[in-house]
């Protein structure tokens, strides 16, 4: 895939001590108070569907990448993802599969989107997804262009790789060129979609062709090095989730810090690969900087399913347990899980719930046997504490850059 999504790491790792704290430090967080006392709900899948689920403090409003001018009027502060592209390119299917857990096979029955659909995600990161009808001409003067693009986090342009894509590219370029003047910093993410139906060769040819055409045309118009990234996606495998992960990661200003923390955790505990997952959407918001491959992402993502499904089965509301008060104290507040494989040389999987929205999942090689679990537990605890400082919640901690040592 395109490597331009690594651009971020150029930013300083110590970017946040000077971040404006006051904005969110003041909002007293309800924490888990809306949950019944004593009922330690963990890993609840449907939390985001509760209308009154408490919303986590939005991480520091993204200050770069968004193209927002410092003096622009304050909006709702949620990063906004715009889904655009030709009609029938798969925009609504993407949003249903990723954010509503619709089985991919059911997307055949989705009807054409006729008006802009706005959906809010109350997950770890609060963001909005705007699903655009394919036929809209955004630059029609009747449209309030500013209103649409002002607070945008990323523009996701979906191209159907199985269809004639020249017109789509033309419109994409037109859009980019139009936006270039007023909002030069918008991330444009191009999803070359429905690649599952193409053969391997044809797939990469198409992908290269699309990249080539977009870049050529942009540079012909004098726009070099446009902030455009390309992904091959399909709703029938995990690629769409991975692409979204990368899109979302660009909107997290603290990403370099998170990556540094994860790197440090990995080297301390000999972890092969660590992911910080958003449990609800199964988007990973950060991983250590060692090379990723889709296989390990899929293992982790499937693993979350296992843990959530089992938790659903045995986490039901039991009638009050009398005489077990001492047990309640020793129970884990954060869910954790460990899978060890039977054969030598296979990976271990470790999951730890970091907060209501995030889970840390580690893949470990066989050089770090399960006996080290106590060490890992401890270090993950440290990691958790560090994370709390990066994303302050109820406590008004002064955030500091922290690492394991």
């Amino acid at each position, binding site marked *: 895939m395109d490597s331009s999504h690594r651009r971020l790491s150029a930013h300083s790792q110590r970017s946040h001590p000077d971040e404006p704290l006051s904005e969110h430090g003041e909002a007293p967080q309800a924490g888990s108070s809306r949950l019944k006392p004593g*009922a*330690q*709900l*963990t*890993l609840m899948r449907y939390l985001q569907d509760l209308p009154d689920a408490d919303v986590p403090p939005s991480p520091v409003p993204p200050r770069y990448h968004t193209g927002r001018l410092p003096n622009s009027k304050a909006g709702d502060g949620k990063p906004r993802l715009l889904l655009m592209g030709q009609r029938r390119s798969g925009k609504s299917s993407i949003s249903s599969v990723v954010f509503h857990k619709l089985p991919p096979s059911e997307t055949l029955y989705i009807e054409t989107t006729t008006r802009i659909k706005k959906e809010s995600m109350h997950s770890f990161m609060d963001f909005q997804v705007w699903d655009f009808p394919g036929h809209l001409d955004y630059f029609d003067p009747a449209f309030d262009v500013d209103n649409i693009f002002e607070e945008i986090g990323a523009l996701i342009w979906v191209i159907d790789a199985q269809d004639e894509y020249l017109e789509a590219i033309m419109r994409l370029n037109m859009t980019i060129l139009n936006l270039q003047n007023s909002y030069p910093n918008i991330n444009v993410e191009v999803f070359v979609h429905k690649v599952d139906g193409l053969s391997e060769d044809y797939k990469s040819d198409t992908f290269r062709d699309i990249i080539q055409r977009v870049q050529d045309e942009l540079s012909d118009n004098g726009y070099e090095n446009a902030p455009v990234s390309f992904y091959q996606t399909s709703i029938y495998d995990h690629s769409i989730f991975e692409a979204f992960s990368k899109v979302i990661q660009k909107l997290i200003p603290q990403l370099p810090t998170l990556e540094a923390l994860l790197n440090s955790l990995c080297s301390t505990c000999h972890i092969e690969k660590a992911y910080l997952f958003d449990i609800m959407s199964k988007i990973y918001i950060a991983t250590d900087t060692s090379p990723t491959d889709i*296989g*390990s992402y*899929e*293992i982790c993502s*499937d*693993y979350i*399913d*296992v*843990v959530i*499904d*089992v*938790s*659903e*089965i*045995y*986490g*039901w509301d*039991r*009638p009050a*347990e009398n005489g*077990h008060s001492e*047990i*309640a104290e*020793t*129970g*884990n*507040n*954060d*869910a*954790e*899980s*460990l*899978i*060890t*494989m*039977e*054969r030598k040389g*296979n*990976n271990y999987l470790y999951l730890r*719930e970091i907060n209501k929205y995030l889970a840390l999942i580690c893949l470990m090689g066989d050089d770090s046997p399960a006996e080290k679990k106590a060490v890992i537990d401890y270090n993950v605890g440290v990691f958790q504490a560090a994370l709390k400082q990066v994303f302050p919640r109820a406590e008004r901690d002064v955030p500091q850059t922290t690492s394991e040592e």
Partner: protein
Amino acid sequence: MNTGKRQKQRKVLLMGKSGAGKSSMRSIVFSNYVAKDVRRLGATIDVEHSNIKFMGNLMLNLWDCGGQDGFVENYLNHQRNHVFGSVAVLIFVFDIESREFPADVISYSNIIRALQECSPGAKVFVLIHKMDLVQARLRAQLFDERAEYIRTASESFRDSVDFFPTSIWDQSLYKAWTQIIYFLIPNAATIEGLLQQLAEVIDARELILYERTTCLMVTHVTRGEEGQNPFTDRFERISSILKTHKQSMAKHTGIPAGSANFAEMQIKTGRFMFFITRLTENTNLAASIPPSEQVFNAARVNILLVRPKFAELDIASKPRPGIQQAFAHSAESDRDRDRLRDHSAGGESEYRGKGKEPVSIGMGGGFDG
């Protein structure tokens, strides 16, 4: 029936019209196929035999009988005794979408007649398959209608035949096969008795015994208020979860699905603790326990100690190995326990309290039947 090895060979016939989904079902349950892989399967020619070792002393001798008319006629005429002799279980699969349901039933009753003649003591399970193709609200009604109609054609098996709606796309497949397997297990009652004792000892809310390769439930023990768990289909669901996980591991690590077994899986939350670990060569034990580290550690140790007892049940090789073996094991586990006690610091008090009991299972409690 009891040979020297006391290995029970049970003959299981899998029949039904061509294309009903017999081989798909078999591949998913026994050969680690994913539901969408089954479209690779071709038509079954004649009979495909497979021997499936299940729970040590139970050997399933599965006859997957191709359903094309020519083959069926052959089974009923030339091979009548060969095919229908000494059958333990007949599984007959109906396709809910079939356009010739009455013709299917006629073919069914021919087979039933042959079975009645050659193996009158057999048990019949009827699976009404591909239920996913029916609209959800019509399923129950359609299933009942079909089942009633088929029952009238079941001759002398009319009262004993069991019906299940199934689909390879959800856990209903596991539900049906769990029942079938349970029927075939020779010492289910003994296993249940032992599990019950074990559950008392480790204060488990629920213990579920799974077969390792198929992830089918063998039996389960539920204690106390866990009986009110609203997820009544949890056993099949866990089967299905485990199977999916196995396939995911196999797919992404490149290990063959048959050996992508985990040694242990634990999940700890504030509401429950759950772990699955190996019990015997062919079984995994899943335990749901209260959320407490002490109980958790004690449970793990106790399960470790009780393994030999179950292993013996699993194999049941010699006529009366019971007593000596039990003693030998208990001596061994005494040593184990002492060793472990030195190591266990955290859950010590709990452990001492409960540690003695599995030994008593090993010696006198269990295996007098």
